[in-house]
């Protein structure tokens, strides 16, 4: 129990970002800076097939020619790409060789303790909750549990490196098919230097028996994290994928430029959920923190396919991402549910793109932004309906909540309709969480924390209720925790 005010403050500080610790682990790194040699070294270190080296080199060439985008409503000091370590992987206990993990016994116990601290038990207890976990530590997947159970169902869930080793031609077929290397600046960078991530393949007519989960942690404060996730849902299959992220506190900013590609074939469904809690930087000065520049896109290639993005963004100093759906197949469905909370000096320019190409496609966008302190929260959405997308439907809600007097919220909806039979609905609201609101709730006997939680949960209900149960409880607590001491 705290004895003094200082102890109370210290306890709260620790609670505010309890993941801000660093694990002292020997790591294999490739030094700072980016050039063609680094790209080749990453490929060689990972013993990659030739096609992937050529993929990386093409991406690097494109990256060099592209200008860095500056159209987002974000202010940040320029990134020195030569001051980042592009590869960092923990060494195995004992041997100085490229880590390969056939069993949990081979993994550095310190790494396992790190994940236990984060509440990610890789032991058998996890089996009781029916979740298979792929934990990515810096650039390397540390362990994938329950792989055998999934293999028996025909489901492939493994690290990207393992997929390259076991199923290289499957990777070759799909890699870059949804997010090409030239798609954008950060996708090109990721394509050149990505070193690991997750790969999922669900065979036809299979409902994945477990919820798949990946946990990303940047441990090396000098490195960036450039993971690549690829999920293929074959005809008639179904998968729910959960993603969580943290990083240690550091004075340096860290770059997270990931790429996620989803492919859904006929009658397939992919549900992709994210709870993002990267370190957001110093609350007062904004120093440090993670720059979360991610390209996420799903392609509904098949008829009656469905891709659903659900995200709770509560961290990172700067968030710049637009999980999107390309609705190619007739009768396909795209969904985007998001709660984006910014506090301190965080900035978020996030939203989605729904691109309707097939007939009778429909999309739903529910975006809830909460801005606190001196943060900036931007929703940027694009709904495009192509001339052949007859009978397309879209429903968009983008709401903003302002908490405090110095925060800001902006929305940039963009709608481009090229067919007469489309129907679109767009709603937007802006509101404030005020002291009066909380006073009313507290006068009914609620503590301040519970009052904040009640307001936020009610506001974000539409998003929280579509989160998988595992994440929903965690997301509610995370939001309430982040909002503490921001209301006033």
């Amino acid at each position, binding site marked *: 129990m705290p004895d003094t005010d200082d102890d109370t403050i210290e306890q709260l500080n620790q609670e505010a970002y309890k993941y801000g610790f660093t694990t002292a682990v020997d790591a294999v790194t490739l030094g700072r800076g980016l050039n063609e040699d680094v790209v080749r070294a990453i490929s060689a270190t990972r013993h990659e097939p030739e096609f992937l080296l050529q993929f990386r080199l093409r991406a690097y060439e494109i990256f060099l020619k592209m200008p860095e985008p500056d159209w987002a409503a974000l202010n940040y000091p320029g990134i020195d790409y030569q001051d980042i370590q592009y590869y960092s992987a923990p060494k195995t206990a004992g041997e100085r060789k490229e880590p390969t993990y*056939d069993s949990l016994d081979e993994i550095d116990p310190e790494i396992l303790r790190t994940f236990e601290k984060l509440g990610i038990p890789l*032991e058998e*207890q996890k089996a*009781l909750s029916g979740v298979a976990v792929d934990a990515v530590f810096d650039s390397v997947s540390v362990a994938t549990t329950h792989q*055998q159970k999934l*293999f*028996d*169902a*025909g489901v*492939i869930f493994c690290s990207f490196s393992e997929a390259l080793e*076991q*199923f*290289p*031609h*499957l990777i*070759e*077929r799909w890699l870059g098919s949804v997010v090409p290397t030239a798609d954008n600046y950060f996708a090109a960078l990721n394509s050149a230097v990505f070193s690991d991530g997750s790969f999922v*393949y669900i*065979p*036809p*007519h299979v409902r994945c028996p477990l919820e798949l989960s990946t946990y990303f942690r940047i441990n090396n404060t000098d490195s960036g994290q450039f993971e690549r996730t690829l999920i*293929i849902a*074959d*005809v008639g299959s179904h998968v729910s994928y959960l993603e969580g992220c943290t990083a240690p506190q550091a004075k340096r900013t860290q770059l997270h430029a990931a790429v996620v590609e989803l492919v859904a*074939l*006929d009658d397939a469904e992919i549900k992709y959920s994210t709870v993002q809690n990267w370190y957001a930087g110093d609350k007062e000065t904004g120093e440090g923190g993670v720059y979360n520049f991610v390209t996420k896109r799903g392609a509904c*290639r*098949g*008829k009656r396919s469905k891709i659903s993005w659900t995200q709770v963004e509560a961290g990172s100093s700067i968030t710049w991402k637009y999980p999107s759906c390309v609705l190619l197949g007739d009768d396909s469905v795209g969904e985007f549910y998001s709660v984006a909370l910014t506090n301190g000096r965080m900035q978020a320019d996030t939203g989605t793109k729904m691109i309707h190409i097939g007939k009778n496609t429909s999309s739903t966008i529910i975006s809830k932004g909460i801005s606190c302190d001196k943060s900036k929260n931007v929703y940027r959405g694009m709904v495009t309906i192509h001339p052949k997308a007859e009978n397309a439907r879209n429903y968009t809600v983008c709401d903003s909540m302002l908490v405090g007097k110095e925060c800001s919220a902006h929305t940039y909806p963009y709608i481009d309709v090229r067919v007469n039979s489309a129907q679109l609905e767009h709603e937007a609201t802006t509101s404030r969480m005020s002291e009066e609101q909380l006073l009313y709730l507290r006068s009914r006997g609620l503590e301040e924390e519970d009052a904040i939680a009640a307001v936020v949960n009610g506001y974000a209900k539409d998003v929280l209720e579509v989160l998988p149960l595992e994440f929903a409880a965690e997301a509610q607590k995370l939001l309430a925790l982040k909002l503490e001491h921001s209301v006033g």
Partner: protein
Amino acid sequence: MVSTMTAPILEASMSDQARQRLRKPLRRGSFRPLDAARAEFGLLTVADTQGQARIYWLIDLNTQVVEDARFLAFGSLASHPIADCWTEQLRGQSVEAVCHMAAADIEAALRDKSGTPAFGEAGLEPLNFISELQALALAALPSVKLLPKPVEVERYQRKREQDWDEQDRVWLPLSLMKKIMQVQDLAGKALSERLNRSDIAWSVEGLHDDFAVVVKFGGTGWMPPEDEQPTLVLFIQSALQNAIHPAITVSVKS
């Protein structure tokens, strides 16, 4: 690159047999090196270059017979029933015979009783990847080795519910968190009573295999001297065994 945009047509043109195997394959799965080592067989695993399937064969290296087989398919829709049918057929046969099996025989096994072709007008084309797998398997066979048999470590196996006694019925159904809470309460009380103080710096680090409690001394509060800690562990163990379950053991986190 195999086009999957024709998939619905392909499934509709499949025979009932093929469609059944597509939806409910019998031999899907994989083998790990550990499985092969336990069974004292060699593990042969190859994948074709068109991204259709990967096969896993357990081979008796003395007789060169495929004792068991599994597959993972991830290519065209047809790759799933084809790989399933072939995998089922090859068990018990020599590697040589398996690698010379004709695609037509596999296709014939996928036809319905009426003789409807398994894949309609596509004929034997969907089976092209089989010949590549056969060639790769023959090439990989000389390098298949017998791995050392693993030393089996006895792992905890919870008793069947029918065998539970009264104490098991109270303790085992509890969730992990509830078990830990109970341990914390009881052990905390036992330590406080014994040492006559309430600020002992200790915590429960974990509870494994239902009965193995791991404690840690340290943190805020009074730190027991190191030479006294083993005795305190015994106190805790005794208290928990009396109050909760006699099978509980307590150890200190190293």
